[in-house]
């Protein structure tokens, strides 16, 4: 017992010591090496013991102002599954050979504890590879040697950068636990960065201060015919910051959540302005309003949108003979049908003339062309900038263009406006792809800038309608119609178009195991504005001459399975959109049978009618009528609402499995 107390004391001390003592590269303690499991999450495969970043600015006559980012990281590997943390990637930016980021010396060492001794294995320069990721980004890669369960890996590097707008953000949270993480920042008085923080990790240190820095420079004067040269200096009363967090729990992926980047605790920096000695202050976007103006003023954005002469002819030929209500759809259909989306997404217009000529482009090319054409035709249309679900939500106050990766077209109309996306032929006017349904988007406009909710103008609706007749001999026959509307219609349509009608009905046939499916047909496949009707008949003669017949209430699975299998939830649930499902069954019973038992009607809902399920079962003469309605209205749920929504699904699925009992009259 005593021993236990002592041990836990040591562990306690060791876990705090990162904050108090200076952690030196190479000085890995025996305790750290011996420690067998994370104290934050005992089953963790690996753990960040220490992660420290410093960013500060330097000046040189050759390069002017640059920032330096230094990182020192120590990771403990507990299990084999944690070995992957021994593969390191360091990305850096290389715009041209003149302006670039340079990665300084990389130090990397693995430590193992063997026979009471610490054994070090270094990564040599020859083992560090460099790979060009794309035009601008390069990555340095290496693998730590001799990793075993219990190893500690440690590395440090620095990046010297010409791009002051790339000031590195700092993530205080990772997929593995973090014992200590800190970021130290020293910012020149000439630079104004907006801090962007997110996540729920409390800081143990959150300090701000000042420090005077002095920089020297060489000068050469050639005035008055006499050359003089020498060195001089200037100083900056720089702001200093230190943030630190300890014992940070890891983040995990869960179903129905947007990008994990939305939940990670981190601090990022948006450059708002710079005011270097000898040059006037220059503002770089620091608010959405400023970004709005910036983009509208920029040749490559607002300028490009204004140069719509090349569209004049096309627009006038599209709109000729059409009334005011028909034009938007005509323009939308024109872009959608005449242009090919190349599969890429972007935020920027690029070369719109080329897009127009080639009839091919990325999402921004197509949707911005649509904005221009609608404007050309006399409508109020604007771009809406957003982050897609897999990319993450933009900060509501501080803009960062890296957080935006997609543009939609906003068309103002009497009842508020409608969002359009012309990238996919299967999208009807006003329907958005699911990945765009992510909070709010910024309307880039000279007259009405602001946030617009990213909502589709179409519902997600499915109705299952079954008319079933029980024959006197106990066999059952029925007609089924599945009506798929809105985005549900689109997904059925896409499904049928890519796999064919046969495969589609084969899947339905398989889901209706007890029934044989025939006389299949679909309607509304070619017209993306109509609902999709899937018609078929079902029959079953397994109950022939049976005295008792049990019929499941829910012949066809209308609501789907419970998507939530986990017992608990860490992140909020974020459905892309609400939806509704309806199930209608009319059963006709012959004279020689009678209803013995019917399931009970019921209604239940989540607080505030966030979701509701309603089931009514009635008998009227020789008919049994079942109406089931499931509606999900609220799309965003906090983790403490999780058990409620999970139970809701459980209960609904359980209700579906109840049976109608029919008996032969005696």
């Amino acid at each position: 017992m005593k021993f236990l107390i002592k041990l836990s004391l040591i562990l306690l001390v060791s876990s705090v010591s990162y904050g108090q003592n200076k952690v030196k590269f190479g000085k890995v303690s025996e305790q750290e090496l011996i420690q067998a499991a994370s104290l934050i999450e005992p089953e963790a495969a690996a753990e960040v013991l220490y992660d420290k970043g410093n960013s500060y600015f330097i000046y040189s006559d050759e390069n002017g102002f640059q920032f330096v980012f230094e990182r020192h990281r120590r990771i403990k590997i507990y299990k084999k599954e944690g070995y992957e943390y021994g593969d390191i990637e360091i990305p850096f930016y290389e715009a041209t050979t003149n302006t670039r980021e340079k990665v300084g010396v990389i130090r990397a060492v693995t430590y193992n504890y063997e026979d009471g001794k610490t054994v070090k294995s270094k990564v040599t320069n020859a083992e560090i590879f460099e790979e060009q990721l794309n035009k601008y980004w390069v990555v340095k890669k290496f693998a730590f040697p001799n990793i075993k369960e219990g190893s500690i890996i440690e590395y440090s590097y620095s990046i010297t950068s010409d791009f002051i707008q790339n000031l590195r953000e700092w993530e205080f949270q990772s997929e593995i636990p973090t014992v200590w993480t800190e970021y130290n920042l020293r910012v020149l008085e000439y630079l104004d960065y907006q801090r962007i923080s997110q996540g729920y990790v409390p800081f143990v240190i959150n300090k701000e201060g000042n420090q005077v820095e002095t920089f020297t420079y060489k000068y050469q004067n050639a005035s008055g015919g006499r050359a003089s040269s020498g060195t001089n200096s200037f100083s900056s009363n720089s702001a200093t910051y230190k943030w630190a967090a300890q014992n940070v729990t890891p983040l995990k992926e869960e179903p129905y959540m947007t990008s994990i980047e939305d939940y990670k605790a981190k601090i990022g920096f948006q450059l708002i302005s710079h005011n270097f000695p000898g040059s006037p202050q220059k503002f770089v976007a620091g608010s959405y309003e400023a970004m709005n103006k910036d983009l509208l003023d920029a040749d490559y954005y607002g300028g490009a949108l204004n140069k719509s002469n090349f569209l004049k002819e096309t627009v006038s030929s599209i709109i000729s003979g059409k009334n005011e209500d028909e034009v938007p759809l005509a323009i939308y259909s024109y872009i959608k049908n005449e242009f090919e989306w190349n599969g890429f997404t972007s935020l920027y217009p690029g070369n719109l003339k080329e897009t127009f000529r080639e009839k091919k482009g990325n999402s921004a090319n197509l949707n911005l062309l649509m904005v221009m054409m609608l404007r050309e035709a006399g409508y109020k249309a604007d771009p809406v900038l957003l982050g897609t679900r897999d990319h993450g939500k933009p900060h509501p106050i501080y803009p960062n263009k890296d957080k935006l990766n997609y543009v939609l077209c906003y068309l103002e109309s009497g009842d508020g406006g409608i969002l359009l996306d012309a990238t996919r032929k299967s999208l009807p006017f006003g329907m958005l792809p699911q990945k765009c349904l992510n909070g709010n988007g910024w309307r880039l406009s000279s007259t009405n800038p602001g946030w617009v909710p990213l909502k589709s103008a179409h519902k997600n609706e499915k109705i299952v309608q079954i008319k079933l007749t029980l024959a006197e001999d106990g066999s059952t026959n029925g007609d089924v119609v599945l009506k798929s509307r809105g985005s549900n219609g689109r997904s059925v349509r896409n499904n049928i178009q890519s796999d064919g009608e046969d495969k589609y009905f084969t899947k339905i046939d398989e889901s209706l195991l007890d029934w044989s499916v025939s006389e299949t047909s679909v309607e509304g496949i070619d017209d993306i504005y109509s609902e999709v009707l899937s018609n078929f008949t079902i029959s079953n003669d397994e109950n022939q001459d049976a005295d008792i017949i049990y019929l499941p209430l829910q012949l066809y699975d209308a609501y789907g399975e419970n998507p939530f299998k986990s017992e608990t939830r860490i992140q909020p649930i974020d459905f892309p959109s609400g939806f509704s499902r309806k199930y209608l069954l009319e059963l006709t019973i012959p004279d020689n049978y009678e209803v013995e038992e019917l399931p009970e009607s019921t209604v239940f809902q989540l607080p505030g009618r966030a979701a509701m399920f309603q089931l009514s079962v009635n008998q009227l003469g020789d008919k049994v009528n079942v109406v089931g309605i499931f509606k999900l209205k609220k799309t965003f749920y906090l983790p403490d609402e999780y058990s409620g929504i999970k139970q809701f699904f459980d209960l609904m699925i359980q209700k579906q499995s109840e049976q109608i009992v029919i008996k032969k009259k005696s």
Partner: protein
Amino acid sequence: MNRALLILVTCLLSYSSFGQLDYRVSSIPDSLKENAEAVMRLDINKFEVKSIGRGVYYNKYAITIFNPKGKNWAKVYIDYSKLRSVNQLNARVYDAGGRQIRKVKQNEIKDISGFDGFSLYSDARGKYIDLTQTEYPYTIEVEYSQTYDGLLFFPSWNAVPSQDIAVESSELTVSVPKDYKLRYKLNKVSEPIIKSTEEEKTYSWTINNVKPIEYEPHSFNRSNSLPRVKLAPSDFEIEGFQGNMDSWESFGKWINSISAGRDDLTDEHLAEIKSLIGSETDQRKVVEIVYSYLQKNTRYVSIQLGLGGWQPFPASSVAEKGYGDCKALTFYTKTILSELGVPSMYTLVNAGRNARLIDKDFPSQQFNHVFLCVPQENDTIWLECTSQTDPFGYLGKFTSDRDVLLIDEKGGHIVHTPAYSTENNLLTTQISVNIDENGHAEGSIKSTFEALAYEYIDHFTRIDEREKRDFINEWYDLNGLTLLDFNYKEEKLRVPRFVLNSNIKVNHLASVSGKRFFIKPNLVNKIHNIPDKVSARKTDFTIRYGRMERDTVVFNIPENIRPEHIPKPKIIETDYGYYESKIEVDQGEVKYYREFRINKGVYDNDEYDSYVDFYEKCARADKQKIVFVKST
């Protein structure tokens, strides 16, 4: 000088002897357009073996794309690496009338990394061009050549590159120096036309007007149904290493030659391992100690550069760094064992649960992985050296039951790896629950995973508590389930075994309507994946692995409840599998038994419908329900 001129003239001839080609869509025979998303108009393949170490491949093809489904044909990717360069690449697009509408400029060709997704570093890269158009149909034409620096393999000719495309014309010409022996194997193609000159020998094949061949599921070696010519070198050379591939034996010799001298472990390192062995003399135990040392001290990191794609890193580099790819880790283990006096063999395999079977009659480079064979008098040991977690000697879906190439001092030869039997691959589920009058239940589930079934759960010990609970909830997928507690036992043997015990509560296990109770007794093990139906199947089908499931579910029911309807016993017996279920009622106890077996094998195409039917019948039987009535 004359010689240079001659070469130049040949090149010119071979590269530009095709004048104006007719790419009008109207000139495609109607029969080819039917069901085709695209038609290969022409596909000219030329491979010139310049020497045993160098070859030039030239390819010019044109594809007419009819609809968006064929879009991917317009996305062109040509791979290259240190040992295979792309010399010229041109691409054009033509409209339906055969008029050129686009010519790709060199600066429009993207250069992208060809990473396989699991390598830390590799020199594989690719040239990429997107030729997609909005208006269908259109025709793309691509022309390029590649220099093969080192000739471990020759390009294959897949005359019909995929099942969705029709082929109007395709040809292959291979020219080799006069005395060079070209090796080839034909599949649904006739013998070549052979021409000889004083300097070289030329083989050519052509194929015309092939309709699309529809994809059929469970066609294991489906490429066998497509016309194709496989090519392989006889003598070859790569980065200074010469070899011969006429036989597996000679290929094995080459493998030996590239790893010669790489068994360079230091005495110190060997001493460390020998100290672990101590006085152990039993060979099997010695191997087990070495394997456990390997699993503790190394990990898999793949670095593929040039010849390094085939040559193992020196054993000393694994000793030093503690990592390596499959070749390095296997060779390292082999070196240790050899120093300990235990002979073992480096073994080449085409690994993967659905990997193509190799053609053992055609010695050539057909492998993607290396592992180790340790022959023993009875029960040879196989070691997967890249895994830190596999049980000792475990051969799973990754490498079992297939032909592999064993390398010994004399060279190489093919052997077949062992397979677990259908009875070995057993998943047993035993459930016992008490049901109360409201249909709620409480009880226990015991699942036992053996042999290949162990692969379902082999990661369980390595995930955290929350993920373990998630796994159990998802594995049983029972509506209303609450997991009370669980425990497990893993036996990492050659036939591994994993037992998972859970105590559970289930809300509404029985659905209650008025006075009736409904229970589907197969609670957690229903068949979900019925094979896709195929109308008029043309190819045979393969069940790669046999397996078995055995279920027992015992329900204890309240006294005032009696069964009203009990499904009849079911037995379904076929060549592919067996299904049996029965229910016994004994006072307050209802017992459900189930057995499901799938037999591995290759079956005729005309048996496929009844195979699907078997699955459907089983799935239906799995959904049967027992009805109880409350007596009040």
